[in-house]
């Protein structure tokens, strides 16, 4: 394995970790108007993410930073091509972030309603747009040899792109509703569990359609057909997806949540493996595609950054797992007050 390969898969891994961590936040935020029947239940939902969401979001910053450092050209062309979509994501994330801190500052239903709306938009929009963006990357983006984008925001809203958006939203809704079921009690807990089971069916349908559509809309399967052993990744992902349902029906919520996490990681790698070595394929001409080889940093930078990653990512994981473990119980349990 050369450095470009290692970084390519680390890049995929960082996105996967971002999706499994902030993913449940997006799910809970999207479900906010649908599952909570009163202010108390809304507060449970906010506080179920409260201690962890900020740390989760840094995985996005790290994924972005690593793209910048290890594949500067991908970073440059990807984010300038997807300008409007990315701006929408960023503004959505801003609204979501401040909602946590602002909502509880003033005791007025109107005020709270504003931030509940921001929380909803700030969760549902990134979920869909990340999905649409990645699906479009799988499909190829109209960029020329100078990295100039020949399209608009609407170019991204093709059927396959939208399907990607729906799929991501379903992943996060299932992931988030299980998380909420773990964190809540009483009616809300029951509602969250029921929602997880129902949404799982939608997720299954979306996943099947996406797997089939990818065959027609993308080149993702070329790598799999070249090395059939890779189909194991898809099989494991599908098993994990079925595992969610299995554990949900047994009431083993943590196991269901971990199955959901494995499903999301598997789905991310399904795409990443299919792309390899492309990172930002051009739909105009394959020669314009940005790959792990033609868009990477210098060997020295890749080497230094690998050392940095090998030292710091495990450290980050250790203290994040510590933080997750500290707040693993239900909201409102001993020592876990509703701050927000």
């Amino acid at each position, binding site marked *: 394995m050369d450095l470009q390969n290692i970084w390519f898969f680390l890049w995929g891994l960082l996105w996967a970790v971002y999706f499994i961590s902030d993913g449940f936040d997006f799910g809970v935020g999207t479900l906010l108007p649908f599952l909570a029947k009163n202010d108390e239940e809304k507060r449970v939902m906010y506080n179920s993410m409260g201690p962890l969401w900020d740390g989760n979001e840094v995985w996005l910053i790290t994924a972005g930073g690593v793209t*910048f450092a290890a594949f500067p050209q991908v970073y440059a062309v990807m984010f300038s091509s997807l300008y409007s979509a990315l701006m929408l994501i960023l503004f959505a994330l801003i609204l979501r972030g401040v909602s946590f801190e*602002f909502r509880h500052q003033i005791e007025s239903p109107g005020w709270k309603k504003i931030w509940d709306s921001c929380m909803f938009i700030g969760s549902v929009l990134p979920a869909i747009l990340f999905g649409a963006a990645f699906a479009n990357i799988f499909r190829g983006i109209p960029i020329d040899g100078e990295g100039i984008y020949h399209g608009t925001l609407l170019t991204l809203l093709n059927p396959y792109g939208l399907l990607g958006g729906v799929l991501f939203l379903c992943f996060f809704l299932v992931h988030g509703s299980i998380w909420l079921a773990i964190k809540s009690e009483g009616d809300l807990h029951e509602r969250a569990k029921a929602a997880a089971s129902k949404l799982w069916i939608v997720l299954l349908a979306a996943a099947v359609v996406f797997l089939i559509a990818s065959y027609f809309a993308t080149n993702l399967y070329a790598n799999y057909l070249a090395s059939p052993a890779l189909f194991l990744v898809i099989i494991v992902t599908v098993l994990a997806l079925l595992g969610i349902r299995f554990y949900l029906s047994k009431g083993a919520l943590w196991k269901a949540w971990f199955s959901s996490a494995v499903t999301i990681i598997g789905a991310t790698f399904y795409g990443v493996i299919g792309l390899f070595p492309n990172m930002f394929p051009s739909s105009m001409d394959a020669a314009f595609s940005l790959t792990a080889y033609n868009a990477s940093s210098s060997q020295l930078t890749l080497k230094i950054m690998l050392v*940095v990653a090998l030292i710091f990512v495990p450290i980050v994981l250790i203290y994040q797992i510590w933080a997750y473990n500290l707040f693993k119980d239900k909201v409102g349990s001993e020592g876990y007050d509703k701050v927000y």
Partner: protein
Amino acid sequence: MDVLFLSRLQFAAATMFHFLFVPLTLGLSILMAVMETKYASTGDETYLKMTKFWGKLFLINFALGVVTGITLEFQFGTNWSRYSEFVGDIFGSLLAIEATAAFFLESTLIGVWIFGWKKLSAKAHAFVMWLIAIASTLSAVWILIANSWMQHPVGYVMRNGRAELESLSEIIFQRWAILEFVHTASGAYVLSAFFVMGISAYHLLKKQNVEFFARSFKIAVVFGFIFSVIVAGEGHMHGADLAEKQPTKLAAMESHWETESSAPIYMFVIPDEKNEKNLVEFLPIPGMLSMLANHDMNSEVKGLKDFPADERPPVLINFISFRLMVGLGTLFILVTAVGLLLRNRLTDYPLYLKIMLFSIPLPYIANQAGWILAEVGRQPWIVYGLMKTSDAVSPVQTPQVFTSFVAFLVVYGLLGAIGFYLIVKNAKKGPDAINA
């Protein structure tokens, strides 16, 4: 308006807005760590109340700082893609290191701090606060190393049409980076001290919670005085660096047009950019500019006219920013020194307290002025001497950038107004509204 101009406006708006919140995060986190440590070691409940009261204001400010920070990282890609391709090897690495080695710790622990009062012992909770303070300062270290590289690129080699990394240690430990960090961090600490002193003064004037706010004031005034002296003294050391490494910025901020020996500093100047001269020059301090630049009263200082017109930064804005920053910096030393003398009988000096209350915005202005000088003074370069800002901009469409710029103004304007309102409201309420 073209993409370049709009992108510059947008980046300026986004960075300046972000930097309204960063300095307070940097400084207040340290003050809170001091307060909480005092609580953890003495068990004195007033210190706990202090931690929680200042913590409430801190968290509103922190939230705005965090959410506005994310857009900055991604704007290099969206609006400055040519720059990103050119410097990713170096600049991108520094940002990535910042996220993994510092920002992660800060963001993960802030949640633990907010929610963990009953989960952790008092000492462990105070330790978490220290880690947050240290991590946010470390975060600043990496960001400022990255900015320093734009100001004075070192440790690179031009290869494959871009700047590639040659020596990371040279980049990290270059003199410019160390100076810039000390200067920026000190400026942030001064701002935080004035924030705490100003709000304490408000309550002391009203004779509310006197003990509580007198204690807060005393911690802040010591902190404020120390860093006012450091930021000024260390800022002075920048002068010599500028003369050597960014002579155009030095000439612009002094509106210094003609190359001359034993160049003076005029106390009063009106620049006339169009005619490349000063309309009015009044009250010279002979040889002072030469002294600042080269530690030699008789030395030569290059004037703007000796640089090609397309390599000069705008004069007026840098000239004004520099004077604002230095003038305010001097004032900060004076008022904190007075505060040190009066610190044990503050309530006897209502006029001083009033001055301190109305001084809260001043370090904000000084901090912003400093950054304007740093960034506008570097123009027309995005990386000094290596890449011009006009070559760095993304090949995107004008309407896209126009739309996002307007969105930035609207969203940030609203958030700023709400944040300001909430901080003022909570600051006025005082500590009694907090359940300890």
